[in-house]
């Protein structure tokens, strides 16, 4: 069946979350969890401490998907992330995530047709600087 959905869903913000200020404990816990040993992520003073680049992936907004998400298939799975990194995350930063459906597209491969959903989250800090743009891909068939 050809993919059919209301294209107006593309680009509309479905989540806007302002997170509590980042703490040193959050950064150190994340660094420990992913096995980081670099002192700038682990033992630096609070003023010098920065989050490992993938720290932003641990942020969870209020809504993972739009409420009016079209049915793209019965089976879906994580198809990877692309992340553009910007300003580093520092202790005390107030991060905001704005999430949109960036793209929905269909392709065919050795095993048949599949649909890809790309959810884009733009993370900014309290200075309006871009911290990261995360494109989360999911594949459905």
């Amino acid at each position, binding site marked *: 069946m*050809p993919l059919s959905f209301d294209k107006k869903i593309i680009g509309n913000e479905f989540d806007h979350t302002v997170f509590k200020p980042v703490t040193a404990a959050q950064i150190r816990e994340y660094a420990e969890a992913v096995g980081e040993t670099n002192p700038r992520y682990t033992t630096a003073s609070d003023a010098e401490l920065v989050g490992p680049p993938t720290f932003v992936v641990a942020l969870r907004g209020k809504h993972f998907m739009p409420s009016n998400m079209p049915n793209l298939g019965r089976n879906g799975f994580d198809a990877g992330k692309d992340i553009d990194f910007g300003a580093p995350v520092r202790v005390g930063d107030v991060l905001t995530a704005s999430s949109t459906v960036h793209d929905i*597209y*269909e*392709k*065919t*491969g*050795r*095993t*048949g*047709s599949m649909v*890809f959903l790309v959810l884009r989250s733009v993370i900014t800090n309290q200075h309006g600087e871009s911290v990261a743009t995360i494109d989360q891909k999911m594949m459905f068939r």
Partner: protein
Amino acid sequence: MILDLHTHSEASEDSRAPVETYLKWLQRKRAEVPIDGLVLTEHRQWNPDIDYRALEDQYGCLILRGAEVETDYGHVLVYGVNDDITRRFDFTNVRLSARELIPAVSEMGGLALPCHPGRPTIGLCEHYETKGPIDGVVAVEALNGGSRRGENERVQAIIDRYGYKSFGGSDSHLVSFIGICATEFDRDIRSIDDLVHELRHGSYRPIDFRANLARKAS
């Protein structure tokens, strides 16, 4: 003249290869991969505004553009894309009719050639077995750098049966794959019109550089 007729850059959603990095890699690997140019065939898209002439001049490598589209007979490379073609065919449609596309592209001045024909589901061979042949096919990609064992070998039967010409391409999505398979033309090609003309009327053959790279690596 040797061209890689099937390549993808970061403009395709499943590739991370910048065009300039391809060119830098080819400069370094000139001895093992002596190609003169490449054709970017991005998946399901055509952007008329991209201009690679500055990179061509800087690196001395011909850069042409086409597209890889998806049809009911598998994937097809379209060379000589123009406004008439993009007005008639939606390249994002993964269910294009090959019986309609292939002759229509020719009528509109381009050329549509099936790629990786031996691949399951998205290759011509499987569909020929169930739906019969298509009129207007001039050549098929007999050598594809991304094919699995047995997929390229499967293509020879339809080449023999239908008299198709054969060409090669790397189907590169990663920088180090550029040019591993390519096409050797008897005549020089300087433009996309030259390419369409030579693919239709000229003499050419697939060429495989993987052994060169393997020898160098060992």
